[in-house]
């Protein structure tokens, strides 16, 4: 097998492997429905407290829909109790938690599209 033949086989194989790895690392987030979240200045505590957690990749706050989304770092996760406790310490109540296979960027884009 000459150099060019090896290259032609390697490239598709690499792409296949990369694609497979990428899909296995699909972003996971938790969407929390939060009561009492009416003011951006006051709700900054939610974003700040959740952002400080070691497993947090990104946080999104949607004031209109009263939703907070937390994306986890690759291979890490946060339990519902921890997320709820952080939101309660920021002064709010969690009414619902839902795990989704979406990044915060995707959730943000989806919510903005609905507005």
């Amino acid at each position, binding site marked *: 097998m000459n150099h060019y033949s090896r290259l032609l086989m390697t490239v598709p194989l690499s792409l296949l492997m990369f694609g497979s790895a990428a899909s296995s690392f699909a972003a996971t987030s938790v969407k929390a429905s939060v009561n009492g979240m*009416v*003011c951006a*200045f006051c709700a900054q505590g939610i974003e700040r407290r959740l952002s400080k957690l070691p497993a947090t990749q990104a946080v999104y706050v949607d004031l209109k829909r009263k939703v907070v989304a937390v994306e986890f770092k690759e291979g890490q996760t946060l339990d519902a109790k921890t997320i709820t406790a952080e939101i309660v310490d920021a002064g709010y109540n969690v009414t619902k938690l839902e795990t989704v296979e979406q990044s915060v960027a995707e959730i943000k884009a989806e919510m903005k599209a609905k507005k």
Partner: protein
Amino acid sequence: MRRLAVFITMVLSAGLAAAAPMGFKGSVMTMGDFGPNWKESWVNYALTARDAIGVGGLSMRSDDGTRTRRLAELNYTRLLKRWNLADAQANVWLFAGVGDIRGNDFGGSKLALAPGVQVDYETTRVYLAATARLYRATDLNHDFASVRAGFSFYEADYDEIQPWIVLEARRMRGLSDKTEITPMLRLIHNRYFVELGVNSTRQARASFMYIF
């Protein structure tokens, strides 16, 4: 129905005003309110989601500018009750302050006590608050009361600036016989809170809040 009940409770329990007087657990919050006859600033630390301790200073002047008061205080803020509703939040706050008050019409300083209460109700478009605070020392009574009502023209996203129009009426015993009325422009962002206004005697007012 529950929302309506909370709203009516807030309105009827008229005491008197500012936004949330403390930040989230573990945060440091600073606030200032400045006008020719009233200059106030303080900083507090939220020990829990419901308790904060802080220090503050208040400088007051009579309408004619002849008498002044300066108060330095240690204060405790307690969130007594919070209603986190689907589209609103209502709170009852208690304040306890103790400090040292000085004036230009008496010698030395006096021990001052400054307890208070605030009730507020807020949605993303409407804001109502009432605050009452006693400023008492031997032979001094500068009790303070204010009410505020405001609205925003539109809802804003979390990372956008939201403008509000807020009207405040406030009154203080001993230094002024007038009820000060101030329309203000309030700007709320997720990192800062600013109010600018001109009161009924054409004096400028500015206040801010910031959480570290």
